[in-house]
C-alpha cells in the first residue's frame, strides 16, 4: 500500500503507570486463604502480577483490573470491593473526560483503534459534536474496502484557495493567478497548545511527528528553534506581531487583523502561505468572509479548548463551523479559502464531524500533550511538579506517541468514511446531508407524540 494511505505506528510504552478507572479494595483481614482463591482465578491475573509503583503509589491491581467483578462476587468473606479510582475520576474536566484522556493514552501507546464489546454505553446525545451522527451507506452505494486493501480511501486535503472558475487566455491556456496549494495526507495538523509549559524536547518530538505524518506543526516562533533543522518545512511558525519569518518554512500563521491586506503581509515574509488565525467569537462567519475577501486563503478558527465559542460557552464550535461554511458557500467563495479549526478536538470522531460541518482540516493541540501521558491536572500552571515529568520526555518517544495517536485517528477516519461510502476526504467537507443532527431529528420524531392530560398517569 502506498505510504500516503497509511500511517505507520509502533508501540510506545507508557513511561508512567497510567491512572485507570478501577479501584480494588481487597481486605486481607478475615481472609480465609481459600485453596482456590478468587484472586488466583482472576482471568486477568491481577493479583498474581501485583506490584506497587512507590513513586506514584500506584498499585497494579487497579491497572490490570478489567472490572469483571468476579472476585467481588466470589470471595466467601466478601472481602473484595470495587470503587472508581478517585484519581481517575478527578482527571481532566467535563469536556476532557477521564474516558477521553485514557483512550488517547491507549491510542498513543498502541497506535490502535479502541475496540470494545457490548454496545454503546454512553448518553443518548450531548452538546456539540455529541449531538450528531454520521451517515452510513446500506446496499445501494459504492463500496469502500480501503482499509482491507482493495480500493484506497484518500484522506488528503489541500491548504490554500482556488478560484471559483478557471480563466483561459487567448492562447487557450489557463490564465489568471497561479493556483498554489499545499497538500497534506490527512486533514489533521498539529499545534502547540497555548498556556501550557512545553519543553524543547517536546517541541522537537512533535516536529519530527509532523514530518513523519507529512503535516504541519504550528509552533511559536521562539519555540521553533528546538525543532531539528530537517523538520523546518513541516513547521508553521506562529508570528505574533512583526516577528520576522524564519527561513525554510512554507507557511506561517499570523494574527494580523483581517482588515490588513494579505498581500502586504506576505511581501514582508518568505513563506509562500499565510494562515490567518481568528478567534471563534460571535459573528465569526462575517469575519471569515471579510478575511477571505481580503485575500487570505487559509484561515484558522480557534475555539476554546472545550469546543465552544471563546466569547460564549453556550455556543459550540460545531455550529460555528457550519455557519462559517454556509456563509462562504452562499458568498460563492467556499473554494477560495481553506478553513482549519482548532479547540476541543479530543477524539477521532471530532475530525470527520468537523469536516462534515464544513472545515477542511483540524488542528490538534491539547490531545498532543495527553498523548504524552499528560493528565490535564493543571499542576504545571500552578508551578507544581508534573506527575509524569513531561520535560524529561525523550523526543523520539514523543514523536512515536503522536504518530500513534494520529495514526489511530486516521484509521478511525477511514472507518467513518468507509461506512459513508466516501473515498476522498475533500468530498466530505460540508456534507451535512450525510449527517444527522439531534436537534432536528429528535424534534421531528417526537414532537407530535401524545400529550399528558389531566388525570393521566405515565410510566
Amino acid at each position, binding site marked *: 500500500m502506498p505510504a500516503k494511505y497509511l500511517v505507520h505506528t509502533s508501540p510506545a510504552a507508557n513511561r508512567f503507570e497510567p491512572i485507570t478507572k478501577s479501584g480494588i479494595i481487597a481486605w*486481607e*483481614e*478475615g481472609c*480465609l*486463604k481459600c485453596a482456590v482463591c478468587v484472586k488466583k482465578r482472576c482471568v486477568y491475573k491481577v493479583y498474581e502480577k501485583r506490584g506497587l509503583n512507590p513513586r506514584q503509589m500506584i498499585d497494579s491491581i487497579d491497572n490490570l483490573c478489567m472490572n469483571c467483578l468476579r472476585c467481588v462476587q466470589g470471595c466467601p468473606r466478601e472481602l473484595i470491593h470495587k470503587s472508581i479510582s478517585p484519581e481517575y475520576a478527578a482527571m481532566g474536566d467535563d469536556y476532557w473526560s477521564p474516558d477521553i484522556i485514557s483512550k488517547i493514552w491507549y491510542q498513543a501507546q498502541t497506535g490502535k483503534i479502541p475496540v470494545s464489546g457490548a454496545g454503546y454505553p454512553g448518553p443518548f446525545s450531548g452538546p456539540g459534536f455529541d449531538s450528531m451522527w454520521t451517515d452510513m451507506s446500506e446496499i445501494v452505494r459504492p463500496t469502500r474496502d480501503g482499509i482491507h486493501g482493495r480500493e484506497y480511501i484518500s484522506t488528503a486535503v489541500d491548504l490554500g484557495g482556488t478560484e471559483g472558475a478557471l480563466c483561459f487566455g487567448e492562447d487557450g491556456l489557463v490564465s489568471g493567478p497561479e493556483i498554489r496549494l499545499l497538500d497534506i495526507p490527512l486533514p489533521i495538523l498539529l499545534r502547540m497548545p497555548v498556556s501550557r509549559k512545553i519543553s524543547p524536547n517536546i517541541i522537537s518530538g512533535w516536529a519530527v511527528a509532523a514530518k513523519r505524518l507529512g503535516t504541519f506543526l504550528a509552533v511559536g516562533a521562539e519555540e521553533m528553534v528546538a525543532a531539528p533543522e530537517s523538520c523546518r518545512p513541516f513547521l508553521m511558525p506562529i508570528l505574533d506581531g512583526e516577528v520576522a519569518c524564519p527561513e525554510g518554512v512554507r507557511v506561517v500563521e499570523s494574527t494580523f487583523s483581517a482588515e490588513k491586506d494579505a498581500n502586504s503581509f506576505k511581501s514582508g515574509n518568505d513563506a509562500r502561505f499565510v494562515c490567518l488565525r481568528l478567534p471563534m467569537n460571535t459573528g465569526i462567519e462575517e469575519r471569515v468572509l471579510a478575511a477571505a475577501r481580503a485575500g487570505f486563503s487559509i484561515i484558522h478558527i480557534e475555539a476554546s479548548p472545550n469546543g465552544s465559542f471563546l466569547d460564549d460557552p453556550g455556543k459550540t464550535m460545531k455550529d460555528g463551523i457550519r455557519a462559517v461554511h454556509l456563509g462562504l458557500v452562499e458568498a460563492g467563495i467556499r473554494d477560495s479559502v481553506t478553513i482549519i479549526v482548532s479547540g476541543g478536538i479530543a477524539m477521532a470522531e471530532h475530525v470527520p464531524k468537523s469536516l462534515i460541518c464544513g472545515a477542511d482540516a483540524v488542528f490538534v493541540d491539547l490531545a498532543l500533550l495527553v498523548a504524552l501521558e499528560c493528565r490535564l491536572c493543571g499542576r504545571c500552571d500552578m508551578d507544581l511538579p508534573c506527575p509524569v515529568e513531561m520535560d524529561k520526555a525523550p523526543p523520539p518517544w514523543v514523536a512515536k506517541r503522536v504518530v500513534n495517536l494520529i495514526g489511530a485517528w486516521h484509521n478511525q477516519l477511514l472507518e467513518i468514511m468507509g461506512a459513508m461510502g466516501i473515498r476522498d476526504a475533500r468530498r466530505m467537507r460540508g456534507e451535512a446531508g450525510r449527517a444527522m443532527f439531534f436537534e432536528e431529528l429528535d424534534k421531528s420524531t417526537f414532537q407530535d407524540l401524545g400529550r399528558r392530560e389531566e388525570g393521566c398517569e405515565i410510566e
Partner: protein
Amino acid sequence: MITAEQKPIKEIRETIAPYRKILVLGCGSCVAECAAGGEKETAMLASALRMAARMNKEDVLIEDKTIDRQCVRDFIVQLEGVIEAYDAVLSLGCGAGVQAVAEIFSDTTIIPALNTEFLGQTKDQGLWTENCVGCGDCMLYYFGGVCPLARCSKQLMNGPCGGSREGRCEVDPEIPCAWQLIIDRLGRIGGLERLGKVYPAKDWSKKQGRGPRKIVREDQQR
C-alpha cells in the same frame, strides 16, 4: 496447618548482619495462611530491613521474593539462577521450609526469620490454636475429637487434673480445659463410656526416639 510467628526484627538484624546481599524469601503456603511469611509479610519485612539498613548506613542489598512452597523441591528449584546472586537467604518459611531450601542450595546461607510454632487451626480472624502434636498414633476417636496430648497442659490421657475449674485450665484461665471439652463433647455425642477405662501409657516411639520420622509410600513414588 503449620503456624509460625515472625522473629523480633532485632534478632533478624543480628543474624543477617554479616551479609551484604540478602534475599528475603517468603512462602505461599502455611505461613502465608497464618500471616507470618506470605508475600505481603515478606514485602513488609524486606521494606523494614531496608529502612533499618539505611538508617544505620549499612551498604546492603535486600530484595524479596515469594515462592509457592519452601518445603517442596519443585518450587525451591525455581530459585536457581536467582539465589546465587545473594550472600544469604532470609527465609520466612517454617522450619521444614528453611531446611529444605538449605538442603537444595547447599552452598548458600539460609537464615530463619520465623519461629515455627505448631500444627494449628484458624480459630478466628487472627487467632490460631494448637490442635495436634503429631504423635503418630491418633486417638481422637476416644476423646471425642479433642486431643488431650495437644490441648491439656499436662498431656493427661486420663484427666482432668484437679486444677480444672469452670472449664478453664489451671495454667491459664484463657485456656479452655481440654478435658472439660472432651467430657462435654462425649456427653453430647453419647460417648462418655469411652472415658470409663484407664488409657494406657502412650507409645511415644511413634513420635520420637528413632531419629527424624519419615513416611514412605511406594505407591506414590515414581
